[in-house]
């Protein structure tokens, strides 16, 4: 069973993404409303996520900073991270891709196809 951790400070994005992935793919979902809370959730060995879907622009610790911190911790370094951004300019996309994340997805996402976008980005066949 896939277990996805969604990290986003916007309540409605978390709700719609969680609903989408639960309803269309049957995946287990955890959510966190900040980078700091996301790091704690990801590092919990009892609920280690299969992948993380994380917003780029968050107050406090943004997505790229949170990703770098996760990369420094052996408990979280191996978890694939997909960044979620509403920035559509190519320069932003290249900057995010250069961080070493598993992929970049764009807001607004289509709730009907979000799970397949994640699977495709991560090379998941099931």
């Amino acid at each position, binding site marked *: 069973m896939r277990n996805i951790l969604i990290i986003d400070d916007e309540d409605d994005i978390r709700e719609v993404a969680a609903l989408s992935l639960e309803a269309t793919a049957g995946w287990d979902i955890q959510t966190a409303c900040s980078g700091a809370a996301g790091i704690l959730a990801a590092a919990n060995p009892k609920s280690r996520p299969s992948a993380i879907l994380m917003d780029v622009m968050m107050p406090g610790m943004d997505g790229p900073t949170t990703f770098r911190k996760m990369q420094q911790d052996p408990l979280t370094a191996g978890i694939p991270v997909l960044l979620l951004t*509403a920035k559509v300019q190519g320069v932003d996309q290249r900057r995010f891709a250069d961080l070493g994340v598993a992929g970049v997805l764009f807001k607004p996402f*289509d709730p009907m196809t979000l799970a397949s976008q994640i699977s495709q980005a991560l090379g998941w066949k099931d």
Partner: protein
Amino acid sequence: MSEIEDQTAALLAALWVKNRPLIEERLAALDAAAATDGALGEDARQQAESAAHKLAGSLGMYGYDDGTRIARLLEQLLESSTPEPERLRRLTAELRATIFPDS
């Protein structure tokens, strides 16, 4: 549409209703910026830009693709420290009419 898609669409519709106050709050930040008629302070500009960014990233999830398009134009406009007042008013009114045509 499959049964799963039907169920997902129904749940999304319910979330749209639940989250309407959040959408209204973001529109209100844009209304406030548009009402300043060129005397937009930096704090209000930043709040409006943030509201436009969040609307651009969320409206399309609910099927309001035109709303996302207009919100992106507003976000770009509000990146300027001196956004053109008339364009700000027009786009804000257009966005509200697109999302809530009956209001």
